[in-house]
């Protein structure tokens, strides 16, 4: 093997001291063999066409002064970053705003400090105009590369006070706040959590495992804010009462890609027990699977399903919810709650951009896709009078508890926050004789919305 060979293209570049400095020994590459020269000519021809296409972007670097800069750089400590100084820490900050009918406005700011030795420290402080309370959280996070596994191990520790929704599976605070603020159509119920949470996550390309521990006091929040920006009286003029108590909860979870497929399986289990010092006793389990199957280049079939079961006590803040953009469109958001939930959905999506061929007045660069879907879901373990989740011994719903629907939708793919994220407009029609009617839904989500974001 030839050691220390080098490429030199374009203008002659600085010699050994500059390139390898005091440590590298350069030798000049020998003239290529005749067979190699044909290959090199071929590669060079392609490179020339690249040069022509990119113009001055592809021009070789001006090497003037690089030798002396390298000599000076090698004299500096290896830990110094460059002539502009060492990067000691980074600081980010931004507003932390929210709105819901329990807290009212949540006005505040968040900040994070990144240092090489302390990793990332973050904090958030908010004042609520409805409950006149202070919310805040401080956290520390760090991650380590695990080379043998091609994975990364992350640890996050945080403590503080914050407001969250009863629906533990599908809650998106930013869009929910906007919906509550502009339209008053927020149908989540809210509770307060005070305490500590620690999360350890080992993640790789093919999946992750996660475990977390939290010790938090959970409490109800009153209904304080009856207005929204364009009117008065939100859709739900109340906020359900949460079960009060200290929760010491262990979470175990994992996600993996099914080998040889583009399907993912996600399993999560939450457990709390008085033996752990908790005021509550439950075992909450959720299994979700989904993926996509290509039907040629233009069609994609996206099946997904989720199953959840709550055993033991059934605090409303741990129930499973059905209805709305998260799952069954022909029900209102979180219209049904129970100790168990099963839901499946099948999408058939035309992945090609259809806006331009149809001459639709939308920005040309935003790909508009079309699709049809069918979905079916049920909740069980619910009190028929109050609608609350109640303990159940059943692990599966009765056939007559399933509610089904079909529909069609347009998807304007925005690519934010993930490349698959689309602004979806869907019309759904119920199947079966019940009091549901046709409904439309607007959502910002991925086709595989039942699987948690990675």
């Amino acid at each position, binding site marked *: 093997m030839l050691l220390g060979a080098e490429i030199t293209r374009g203008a002659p570049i*600085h010699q050994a001291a500059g390139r390898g400095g005091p440590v590298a020994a350069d030798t000049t590459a020998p003239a290529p063999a005749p067979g190699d020269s044909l290959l090199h000519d071929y590669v060079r021809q*392609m490179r020339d066409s690249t040069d022509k296409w990119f113009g001055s972007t592809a021009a070789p670097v001006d090497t003037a002064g690089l030798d002396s800069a390298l000599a000076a750089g090698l004299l500096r400590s290896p830990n110094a970053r460059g002539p502009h100084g060492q990067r000691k820490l980074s600081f980010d900050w931004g507003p932390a705003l929210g709105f819901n009918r329990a807290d009212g406005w949540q006005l505040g700011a968040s900040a994070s400090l990144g240092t090489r030795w302390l990793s990332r420290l973050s904090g958030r402080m908010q004042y609520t105009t409805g409950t006149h309370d202070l919310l805040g959280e401080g956290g520390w996070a760090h991650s380590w590369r695990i*080379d043998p596994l091609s994975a990364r191990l992350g640890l996050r520790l945080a403590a503080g006070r914050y407001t969250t929704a009863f629906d533990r599976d599908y809650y998106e605070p930013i869009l929910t706040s906007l919906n509550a603020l502009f339209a008053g159509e927020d149908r989540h119920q809210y509770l307060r959590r005070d305490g500590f949470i620690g999360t350890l996550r080992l993640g790789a390309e093919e999946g992750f495992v996660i475990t977390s521990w939290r010790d938090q006091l959970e409490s109800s929040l009153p209904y304080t804010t009856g207005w929204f920006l364009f009117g008065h009286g939100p859709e739900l003029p109340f906020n359900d009462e949460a079960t009060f108590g200290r929760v010491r909860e262990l979470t175990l979870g994992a996600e993996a890609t099914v080998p040889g497929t583009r399907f993912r399986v996600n399993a999560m289990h939450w457990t709390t027990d008085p033996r752990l010092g908790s005021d509550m006793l439950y075992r909450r389990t959720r299994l979700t699977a989904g993926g*996509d199957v290509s039907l040629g280049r233009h069609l994609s079939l996206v099946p997904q399903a989720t199953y959840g079961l709550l055993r033991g006590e059934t605090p409303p803040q741990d129930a499973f919810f059905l209805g709305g953009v998260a799952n069954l469109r022909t029900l209102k958001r979180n219209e049904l709650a129970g100790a168990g939930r099963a839901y499946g959905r099948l999408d058939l999506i035309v992945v090609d951009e259809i806006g331009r061929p149809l001459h639709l007045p939308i920005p040309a*660069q935003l790909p508009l896709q079309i699709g049809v879907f069918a979905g079916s879901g049920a909740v069980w373990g619910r009190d028929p009078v109050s609608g609350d989740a109640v303990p159940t011994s059943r692990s599966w719903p009765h056939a007559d508890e399933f509610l089904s629907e079909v529909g069609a939708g347009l998807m304007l793919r*925005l*690519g934010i926050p993930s490349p698959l994220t689309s602004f979806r407009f869907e019309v759904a029609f119920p199947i079966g004789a019940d009091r549901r009617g046709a409904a439309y839904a607007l959502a910002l989500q991925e086709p595989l919305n039942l699987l948690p974001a990675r």
Partner: protein
Amino acid sequence: MPPQRPRHRLFPRRPGLTLVAWAAPVALLAALVPAPAGHAAPGDGPTLAKEDTMHTDVSTVLVRAPRVTLEEILDRVARGEARRDSLLRDQSFTATLRVMRDAEGKKGPILFAETVSRVYKKKPDMVRTIELRHYEERPEKDGDHDDMDADFSPSMGEEIVNFAFRPENRKNFRFSIEDRKLLGDHLIYTLAFAPRSALAVFEPSGRVWVDTKEFVIVRQEIEFRQSPVPLFLKNIKHMVVERDRAGDFWVLSRVLVRMELTIPIPKFGRAFDFAMAMSDYTLNSDLPDSLFANSHGKGGKSKVRVGGGRKRS
């Protein structure tokens, strides 16, 4: 058999009219006149001459070796890339990162920012980057250069070249053989790849040129059916990844991308180029650990931020 003359002259002979000049109208006429069913009767029109005086005999060669399948090529490329990676102990090179604005303006691409660095890497996880020069068209007043910042990974695996061929990613792409070319004793395969998932219209597809002598990738052209971030990035027009020879190794030499923004940015334009060029490679020269000091594992993935808004103290 000698070529037959046309029985009837379609055009009167003119002095100085060459055979080439004749050929065009004859061919045009032949194309315009519908071919009669069955054989043309003598005297119906011109008869095309057929060369039958040159003969050559090539003996039949029975090829017993099976043709290398696509799967085998992909396996060998993965092994070739892994072998290449395993043979590299250390490397150093000069890296130039460049952002050009107004790439499709009248004046052509204009240099917006450029950073030249010397990068040293050593296995297992040592990396050191020495910045040699930094240029910004509009530098910030505080002298900080947040617009472009490069951190190089300690890895020498060149994932940007072989991402589709890595065993863990291969199931996500569909491959086909586009072309074969024999150059001396090098057989160059051109392989096309595209995302297997129809849903992943934003994922890269493209062509790679593989030298099957060593089963290494020597060039890659990448395209995107749709933009990954359509809200901000209208499209990625052209992307080329090139390798060059450094001694016994093919090493990453250039990555060039032209992108177009959805909304033009004032004083920057809509289309811009990003270029990363690596030159002056020195490979396996036994770089001393002292060169790296405490920089073990620092750097993470190669990261380039353009137009970032972070504040640093």
